[in-house]
């Protein structure tokens, strides 16, 4: 505990800034800018509530990103369990004091913002498991003893979130945990067995699904089933993206979105709006930007020394990838509408906060790449 402190203290603020991954920082900033334009378009080409608050949030959390980056990775390693426990308590708080909106209880009223702890749990679980597996020897990973705790910390929040109900986020939280476990060396066999077990339990799970969740899955399987009802979102999103063509309809000219055919355009369907206005090339640009961000995170994982850092970066990169891909597949009609925001692009403070926190810790891994965590 004493040894590393000297190394940490040897890094001045100038060193810290210079050791930032600038490509990653710039990519995040560019994505932030793009998201502001998209948000401006959803407001019909005016600075209205969504645009203003999105811009504010972006800069606030972008600032937070730097603060988090400059804090030693050792601190994050030490507080991992605490963060998880803190977020878990918040989730429990949601269960009892949460705000209900459109039939699901996801938010905590913090007076200055409505916090959605399930978004933070995406990072919290990765942190927890990264720390956990960092400590366990490679032989121990697959022993039943060391599987018990990971399963518990994974299942508990997933159940809490799934019953809010928020199927999309709970699946993504679970996916993040599974990735850490797998990267840490848990055998594929284990995942296969639990996969089969889950399939077996599927009918029971379905009986627990809310009617609207069942509808969503049925609608995904056949969007034309009810074109004005549940299939509406998928159909309209595909129309918007398809009608964008190669070059798009032009900034502020996305008729599907400004005539309100596009649902949830600020949040889950922000990519659709962008894709309609900027076409195939615009979509490709966004996709490349995300690919760049993900590859930079992986690169940081490669250079960071500690297994905690590696586990965290790789897992976060993969989880981030999943957030992007699930959202895009959803709006492209390749997955059911499960309600998952597109990182940084979508409107929503908690998601922005969680992503920036996650990226900040990644950046901390970069700055303190040579710092041993224990």
């Amino acid at each position, binding site marked *: 505990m004493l040894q590393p402190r000297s190394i940490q203290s040897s890094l001045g603020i100038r060193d810290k800034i210079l050791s930032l991954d600038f490509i990653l920082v710039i990519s995040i900033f560019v994505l932030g800018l793009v998201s502001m334009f998209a948000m401006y378009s959803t407001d019909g080409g005016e600075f209205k509530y969504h645009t203003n608050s999105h811009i504010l949030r972006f800069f606030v959390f972008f600032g937070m990103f730097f603060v988090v980056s400059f804090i030693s990775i050792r601190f994050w390693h030490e507080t991992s369990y605490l963060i998880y426990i803190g977020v878990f308590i918040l989730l429990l708080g949601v269960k009892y004091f949460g705000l209900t909106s459109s039939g699901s209880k996801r938010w905590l009223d913090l007076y200055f913002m409505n916090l959605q702890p399930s978004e933070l749990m995406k990072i919290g679980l990765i942190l927890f498991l990264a720390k956990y597996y960092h400590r366990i020897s490679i032989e*121990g990973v697959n022993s039943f003893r060391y599987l018990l705790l990971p399963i518990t910390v994974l299942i508990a929040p997933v159940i809490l979130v799934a019953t809010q109900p928020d199927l999309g986020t709970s699946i993504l939280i679970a996916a993040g945990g599974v990735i850490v476990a797998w*990267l*840490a060396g848990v055998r594929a066999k284990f995942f296969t067995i639990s996969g089969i077990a889950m399939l077996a339990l599927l009918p029971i799970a379905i009986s627990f699904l809310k009617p609207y969740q069942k509808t969503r899955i049925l609608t995904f399987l056949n969007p034309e089933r009810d074109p004005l009802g549940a299939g509406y979102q998928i159909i309209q999103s595909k129309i918007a993206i398809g009608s964008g063509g190669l070059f798009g309809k032009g900034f502020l000219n996305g*008729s599907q979105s400004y*005539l*309100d055919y596009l649902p949830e355009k600020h949040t889950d369907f922000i990519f659709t709006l962008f*894709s309609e206005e900027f076409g*195939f090339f615009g979509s*490709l640009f966004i996709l490349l930007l995300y690919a760049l961000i993900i590859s930079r995170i992986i690169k940081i994982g490669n250079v960071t020394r500690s297994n905690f850092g590696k586990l965290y970066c790789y897992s976060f990169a993969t989880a981030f990838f999943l957030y992007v891909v699930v959202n895009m597949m959803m709006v492209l009609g390749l997955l059911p509408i499960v309600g998952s925001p597109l990182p940084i692009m979508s409107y929503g403070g908690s998601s922005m906060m969680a992503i920036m926190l996650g990226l900040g810790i990644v950046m901390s891994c970069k700055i303190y790449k040579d710092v041993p965590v224990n």
Partner: protein
Amino acid sequence: MLSPGSGNTVIKSKLISRRMFLISAAKAVVMVGLVGRLISLQINQATKYKSLSDKNRFREWKLAPERGAIKDFFDTKIASSEPLYQLHLIPENAKDLDNLFVRLKAILNITDRKVSYLKRVIKKQKPWEPVIVSENLDWSDFSRINLFLHELEGVEPIVSVARTYPDNSSAHILGYVSQISTKDLQTKEYLKDLAVPGMAIGKTGLERKLDEQIIGKVGYQRYEVNAYGKRIREIKIDQGQAGKSFKTTLDYEVQKYTNELLKDKAAAVCVMDVYNGDIVSLVSSPTFEPNEFVHGLDKAYWNSLIKDDKKPLANKALSGLYPPGSTIKTLVALSALENKIIRPLDTFRCKGKIELYGEKFHCWEKDGHGIVNLRKGIQRSCDVYFYEVARKLGVDRLAETAKRFGLGKKVLSDFIEERSGVVPNTKWKKKFIGQNWYLGETLHSGIGQGYFQSTPLQLCLMTAQIANGGFKIKPRIIFDAKNDNLRKYLKHKNENPNEPLPTDLLVSNFDLKPLFKNQEHINLIKDAMFSSSNEPGGTSYRHRFENPKYTFAGKTGSSQIKRFTEAQREAEVKQESLPYNDRDHALFVAFAPYKNPQYAISVLVEHGGSGGKAAAPIAKKVIKKVLERHELRRSVNNQIGESV
């Protein structure tokens, strides 16, 4: 438990990297898949989705075209499309609906019932969809609304176009327009692309007959709409095309005059040019207010129309079927002459009745007419004379002549309300009644009773074809400049009897069809009709014109409703003393002027009693009016004739 040996850590780190490499490979594949999906949607299927997006975006509203006008012979509009002032309300724009209605009630004459109805409509509709507060505001209300407009937020005065008729004098022949019904859409092919909500189409009369051409071409407004159907902005507007206007042969002045004459009576009048078949006037009474039908009919008014015994909605001139009564005697006599059954001077003795197989056949003159020849038979309308003639002639020969003169078939085409009537003969009875013909029925047919059924228009055509010397004419109501050749032909023949016909008469589409074998027979009938109207003892002698300019030759008639009982005959019961519904229908046909016939007229007065008393006075007045306007009409005809 903790084994943070550096060797172990390195192995672990390698395992992590290996597994990460696998994940990265999977990510790359998924990314390529996403790009592939984008290519499929945005490049391969872009056209399909662009059109779907446009289908979302644009919505078209059809615009009802302006209906073409219907004009009379002198180009006066008798049905036109006039500006109409309406009051619309857009609930979304109104701040306080209740308050607004209170204000509106103060300014306009709106009932509480209407207000609660409007409120119900508003609740059902989207807030930006207008409701019609008033369909048809008069100018003073409209200008008052405009004056207070600044304090009536949400209210929009709209100027629209609607069918308007100057009055109700020609309501039957013009017909009326009203909202398209589902049945119209199913049955009328031409409405397929025309159907615009709220558009009125012709339901009866000329409005219906001409509907397809007069209706015009539908325009449209294309709007960009949002997902909730609200119009965002207008993209394109096509006003459509106004319908074709039509000129008719009717004389609006005569229509008005006649309509006034027939007021309160259940009656019909037809006036026709005897050479070209132009229908100068066609009036049915009582009439109805056609303007009431344009904007959804008031229920009370509708009920009053259908409950009225005098049947204001029926066009009696076209669809009223009446036994022709004694007016048929002209044709009975003609048929007998043509078939050489009688000679003009052959006589019969009328003792007031004859007997046939024990059945008594009465003459209307109880004491009889004494010795009667053809001329006197028609002049006095002696029933016994015509019983005798009919008996000799037989019903089949009579029917053949009657049909030739236009009875038993429709006179005009494309009027759904027109009926063809009945000219009975032996075959007809066998076919439709399934019985053999009785000789007694021939006698009844000889005086136009029994199975005979005819419309006033048919009787007018019959008279016109006698008046013009026995030539077939094709009656028409839509003006046609290029068909006045019968008049020219007769003029040419009169002036130069021995010269050949000029070529324009030979090559034109004019088809000269004499309806007689010997024109002398026609002249005999005309002369007998003259005596009926102008010589003492004639049935309409009392209503004659002394002035030769107006002198007409006519024939009275009455259609029996109930045959008199022997007791009633003995008591000499008068028609006037019978209950209204039991009285005979009065008929009168005539042509004028006698010397140089121009127009034929038929008059029907339902339950009017005798033709001489009820129908002839009306005919006299109408004839005078028509003849007074004859020069004017000729001059227009000539002008047009020259320009063609």
